[in-house]
């Protein structure tokens, strides 16, 4: 039986948490955070929705498929490593773009380590969603 209050709260809160997770992901290189923490926050957002609306919500179209998340995440980590190899350096060598000045965000420095962190973010999300649905949805008998 779902609670209306929780439902509304989740509707407002989840996007905020999700946004927060992206911020945490991006800021991770300079502040506490990073792919793992960001990923877990994103999962929290998803789980909040699940808690509010039940597992049916995971069947909707926009719900992320956990295997895809996992594979994408892993692939992104590997790609960020292979880019280093393509540049003639060792695997996972950080390659950086020159710093950009972006309005609102200030100085932005983008590089493969951030890409790597993004991979971690996706994979962690995939992992947690997969586990959550396995534990929460299946009947285990």
């Amino acid at each position, binding site marked *: 039986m779902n609670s209306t209050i929780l439902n509304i709260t989740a509707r407002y809160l989840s996007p905020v948490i999700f946004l927060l997770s992206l911020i945490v992901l991006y800021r991770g290189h300079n502040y506490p955070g990073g792919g793992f923490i960001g990923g877990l926050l994103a999962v929290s957002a998803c789980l909040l929705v699940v808690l509010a609306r039940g597992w049916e919500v995971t069947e909707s179209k926009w719900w992320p498929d956990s295997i895809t998340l996992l594979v994408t995440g892993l692939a992104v980590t590997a790609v960020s490593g292979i880019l280093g190899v393509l540049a003639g350096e060792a695997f996972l060598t950080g390659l950086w773009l020159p710093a950009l000045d972006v309005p609102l965000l200030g100085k932005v420095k983008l590089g493969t380590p951030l890409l790597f962190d993004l991979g971690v973010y996706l994979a962690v999300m995939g992992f947690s969603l997969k586990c959550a649905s*396995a534990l929460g949805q299946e009947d285990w008998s």
Partner: protein
Amino acid sequence: MNLIIAVLIGLLFASGLFCILRRSLMKLVVGIILLSQGANLLVFSAGGLVNDKPAFATADTLLPPAGHADPLPQALVLTAIVIGFGLVVFSLSLLLRAHAATGTDDINAFDQTDRLS
């Protein structure tokens, strides 16, 4: 400070070990969790404990503050926490499945595979 943390780590290890020695399936998970908490704390404290000086580089000196905490064990523990997370969730699932399949929660009943008949 170290003494109290050290005792705590010892306690976590002892309790974890005690739990995995129990026959109740569920205690295994409890034990595994306690043990990995203990191990994480152990690695964390092995690098030395520093209060209130996280390893964040400041913009002016480009260095973390003098006497900052050792970031490396922290990174190791972070990896270990994540790995432990995966392992704990998997262990839990395994126990659930084992419980469902065998219909018992007594590990002593799990002796079909390697007892000499």
